[in-house]
């Protein structure tokens, strides 16, 4: 981190572009990831849920037939997780319901990361007035609790599509990441390779986005996953409160549906509530395990101790 003051900066500076050119860095990362137990579990959880939610609907179809006469039927061999209040198969709903959650999570995280990296890198590299204004701006945005702001925005303006929801979540949650990216850039821009690029006079755009940003790739990856976790937290919460559009099927809507129908106090409704909750928790757990492991792999200082 502190490249200039550290007595052995070379050790940390080396494993950037030069060394990883031989073996594919992605493959190396993958093998390190699968070697650690928690990283492997996390990876499996996330992959399984993504697979289930992306491929699943293609196999079982997206329309769920409902038979209101058989509401809250207990789990059976035909319906593994039983039926919900309108006689629809819970497992079927569960498979379909993941798509929106994942889509919003990843889209929002992408938006957050892109904004944060662009602004953070530029602010850190150039400093000066732009930097000061951006810091002030993040100060303000970070102050207002995000969920409260989202809820209020959702109340004032109809959020009528998941995509819009993702855009708003993404647009509101970049400040924290931007600050840490900026701090990284502040230390990276003193390194030799940046100096070399400056001497070659390749232009600021290439220095910032061609030299500095790729050197933060691992850091950005970790923070991207954290951003996915946060976005999923926010969006499921909004669905749960009924502040997001209740059309379609997703895990948040399922929980909200169960709650508003009083399924909490109906023992037969257990699977219908527990199933989406479990899915969200497993997804979050997988993502968190991934970030922790990646952090350990990519951050040698944590591993040594």
């Amino acid at each position: 981190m502190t490249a200039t003051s550290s007595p052995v900066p070379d050790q940390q500076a080396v494993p950037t572009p030069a060394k990883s050119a031989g073996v594919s860095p992605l493959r190396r990362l993958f093998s390190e990831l699968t070697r650690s137990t928690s990283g492997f579990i996390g990876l499996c959880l996330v992959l399984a849920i993504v697979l289930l939610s992306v491929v699943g609907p293609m196999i079982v179809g997206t329309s769920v037939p409902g038979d209101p006469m058989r509401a809250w039927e207990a789990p059976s061999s035909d319906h593994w997780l039983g039926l919900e209040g309108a006689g629809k198969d819970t497992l079927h709903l569960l498979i379909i319901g993941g798509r929106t959650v994942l889509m919003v999570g990843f889209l929002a995280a992408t938006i957050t990361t892109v904004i944060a990296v662009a602004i953070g890198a530029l602010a850190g590299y150039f400093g000066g007035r732009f930097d000061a204004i951006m810091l002030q701006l993040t100060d303000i945005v970070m102050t207002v609790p995000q969920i409260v702001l989202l809820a209020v925005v959702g109340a004032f303006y109809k959020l009528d599509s998941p995509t819009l929801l993702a855009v708003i979540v993404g647009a509101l949650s970049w400040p924290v990441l931007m600050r840490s990216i900026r701090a990284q850039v502040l230390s990276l821009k003193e390194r030799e390779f940046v100096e070399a690029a400056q001497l070659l006079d390749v232009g600021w755009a290439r220095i910032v986005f061609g030299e500095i940003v790729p050197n933060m790739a691992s850091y950005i990856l970790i923070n991207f996953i954290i951003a996915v976790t946060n976005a999923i937290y926010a969006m499921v919460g909004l669905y749960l409160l009924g502040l997001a559009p209740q059309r379609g099927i997703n895990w948040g809507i399922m929980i909200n549906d169960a709650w508003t129908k009083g399924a909490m106090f109906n023992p037969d409704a257990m699977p219908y509530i527990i199933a989406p909750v479990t899915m969200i928790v497993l997804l979050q757990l997988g993502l968190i395990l991934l970030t922790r492991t990646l952090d350990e792999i990519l951050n040698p200082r944590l591993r040594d101790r």
Partner: protein
Amino acid sequence: MTADAATTDAPSGAEVTGPPQRRAGTSLGHRIYHSFVLRRLLRSAFVIWVVATGVFLMVRLLPGNPVDVYINQQIALYGKSYEQAAAEAQNYFRFDPATPMWRQYIDYLVGLLHGDMGTSITTPGVTVTEKIAHYLPWTLYSVGLALIISISIGLLLGMIMAYRRGGIIDHAVSIIGSGFHAIPNYLLAILIVVVGAVQLGIIDYTRMRGNHSPGVSPELSFRFLSDIGYHATLPMITYILTTVGTWALIMKASTTQVLGEDYVTVARARGLKDARIQTNYVGRNALLPLIAQIATQAGFIVGGAIFVEQTFSYEGVGLLLFESINTRDYPMIQGVLLVVTITVVLANLCADLVNAALDPRIRLGEGGAA
């Protein structure tokens, strides 16, 4: 600290009393510290002003703003004339549509300074300020107490984890902490109700929800205090369980780092007692990064309160906001948003000041940078 800053307002007084050299040093330090506090205060005021302005713009100016919506609704639903509806809107939102926008803006800010945020639409005759003053203490009480408990436990666990890295406690807390961190607080609240109350019947949910039992009035008695403690248990457990792991991990990381510092080795070499090293040398320095985190976490928990309070019917600001949103009580929403923001700004301010008091580098560094 504030008392210290106040007494050094007059620099002449500092020169007269005490040994001259030492006083000169503290006087300079105090002046910088003083300006640090001042700058922080100004910044906080600025943030509050920006948020207030943002709310103003959101409510009055943007297309589809609540005032227009309200007026149109009144005309469409009850066949009121535009003037009549506008007059009502004016009453609720405390503004006069006939005056120019800048004038409205000034009136709005002056109103805010007097604590005037309009009148609730759903409960006529009750001002927004009164209503918030009724709900806010419950949130502050439950969230604040939960935060203190959670931080204390987290600190302890984190230090133990750092001292016995790789031990049973380290692994157990890491795993359990990650697990609970993965459960969003609103889902944990739902799980507590579904599993704990309905399925297992351990928790008497119907009796525990709400702020206090009916018939118990606010007073300074054991009965009242134990009753509100009883009712706040479920929300507080939710807040504590979902945050304590994070605190422990932060504390572990910062303690581990401090343990590697040279001054700890030197302290050991000097043969100081372990207890003294742990508190004065390690603990104090490991605590610093934690305090900065408290402010951001406080905001997060207050945000999460909107879900948790709704699940447990705990009548705090979160529930108030949720109900106001559902009933489209715009003046109320506006008021809650402002009050919550101000609360978080003040929490930030406190954390900054405590941090600066503990760590001279912060206030001196800021002073040099500006």
